[in-house]
């Protein structure tokens, strides 16, 4: 942990801008970069479309900027490492995707993101552009249920962008897209567990320290403190600990249909996540909760941090419709229900 982590980069201070170039190239023409800015937009946003702008700090790839694509985000404002994007980046990205039908801002609920996106929203509203904001607040470890507005956004972002993106392609008013996004965020809950820390290339320092036999339940995506630091436990025990907090929080009840996401924070193996998924499904089955769709993968990362988070979203027919639509981007693609 102590010594700077080996990374295959050039100048670390150029990493974010070089990453953005590489990301645009990896999209095979689906996206372009706003010249001179840390912002990515779709090359083909249709006229009159309700625009979806996402974004946040870099270092969490493929989120957020890797989710710009078909039936997903129309554009993304990218910050530096773990730092919310500056207002003018958000402003320019919003103008670049606006097609006369308003823009929905969708991002994780962090003081930095909130302030910078709000400043940009005020600038845009001064110009008469309709801006709505939905903040993702799925992390149940961050605050008690009565203070969801204090909760962080973590891997719930994956389902939120998937659903809002599909809704923004399907519905023709910003009011409607905002309504769907608010319904989705009201029904999504997550919690994560940290196994080992990631590091910021520019400092080479791990964002937190964990003993070789410790894990931290409920830790945030930037190493924010969780609810319990404990000894390494079996997968089934860890899965149960996450479910014990997530299930009663909404609450999720027998007969509910849900989307299930297991998000890898970086260095955890897919094998571990699948072993955890096995246990999660056992418990959900015992509770009579029906899994409509499962996503197991690596989306909201914290550099090479090891650990994962579990997300559940309660679905209705409308949310299922948007969840089941196809989508394509560098970071997240689905064939769609056929």
């Amino acid at each position: 942990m102590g010594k700077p982590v080996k990374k295959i980069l050039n100048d670390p201070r150029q990493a974010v801008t070089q990453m953005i170039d590489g990301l645009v190239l990896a999209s095979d023409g689906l996206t372009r970069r706003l010249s001179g800015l840390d912002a990515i937009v779709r090359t083909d946003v249709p006229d009159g479309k309700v625009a979806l702008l996402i974004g946040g700090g870099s270092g969490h790839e493929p989120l957020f900027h890797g989710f710009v694509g078909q039936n997903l985000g129309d554009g993304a404002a990218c910050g530096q490492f773990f730092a919310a994007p500056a207002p003018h980046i958000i402003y320019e990205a919003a103008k670049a995707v606006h097609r006369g039908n308003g823009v929905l801002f969708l991002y994780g609920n962090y003081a930095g993101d909130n302030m910078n996106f709000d400043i940009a929203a005020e600038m845009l509203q001064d110009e008469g552009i309709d801006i709505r904001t939905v903040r993702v607040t799925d992390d149940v470890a961050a605050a008690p249920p009565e203070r969801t507005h204090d909760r962080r956004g973590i891997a719930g972002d994956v389902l939120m962008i998937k659903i809002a993106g599909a809704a923004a392609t399907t519905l023709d008013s910003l009011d409607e897209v905002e309504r769907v996004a608010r319904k989705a965020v009201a029904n999504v809950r997550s919690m994560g567990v940290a196994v080992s820390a990631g590091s910021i290339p520019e400092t080479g320092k791990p964002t937190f320290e964990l003993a070789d036999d410790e894990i931290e339940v409920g830790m945030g995506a930037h190493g924010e403190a969780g609810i319990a630091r404990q000894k390494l436990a079996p997968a089934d025990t860890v899965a149960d600990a996450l479910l014990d907090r997530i299930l009663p929080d909404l609450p999720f009840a027998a007969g509910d249909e849900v989307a299930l996401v297991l998000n890898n924070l970086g260095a955890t193996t897919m094998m571990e996540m699948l072993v955890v998924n096995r246990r999660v499904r056992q418990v959900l089955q015992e509770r009579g909760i029906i899994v409509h769709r499962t996503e197991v993968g690596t989306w909201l990362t914290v550099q090479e941090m090891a650990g994962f988070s579990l997300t559940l979203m309660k679905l209705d027919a409308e949310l299922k419709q948007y969840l089941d639509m196809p989508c394509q981007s560098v970071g997240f693609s689905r064939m769609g229900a056929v």
Partner: protein
Amino acid sequence: MGDAGLSAKDTVEMLKAVARAVIEQVDVLTDADLAIGDGDHGIGMRRGFEAVLTALDACGPGIDAGFRATGMAIMANTGGAAGAVFGTVFTAGAKALAGADRLDADGIRRFLAAAQEGVAKRGGVTEGQKTMLDALAHADRAATDLNDLSTCLTAAARGAEAGVEATKSMIATTGKARSLGERSLGHPDPGAMSVAIIMAAMRDFVLVGVTDEGERIG
């Protein structure tokens, strides 16, 4: 000098000295943020204030122009919570200093008052939440009724330091430190430390003294 206050030109020099002082403390600020945040405060502030140095070379006349150029450079290049709040500190300060042709003690107080108001509004915070606002508030109170620029800045810098101390005994209720709850006790707030660095740099600049022609005098 002192009473007469600083010319626009010297104000720009002072703001450059502030920028250099913050940049020098990158590691201290990053370590403080590693303790209760995500460990990027230092590199974020460096990004912002490096841009400030460039911006100040190109800024127009007037005391407020220097503050505005500083605020916009921070806002555009820092990112994160710090970009928004420290950008606000200087853009709000610029509004409060509009029309002033010299920067005197009264100007400093107007700057501190406007900065607090702007940050409180932007961040939705009040004193006691363990943020940089606490350092601003302490600095402002310490500077009350001191009409000599150097005396005023000396008090403001000491006040900011006291504000940093005060944050140690506060439990964070906003920002990334919030989730630490009790565990944030004992640690100073990184942003408050930045405020202290800024005020100390302003004080040092004025104490050393600089003529309108920029030559140092004893």
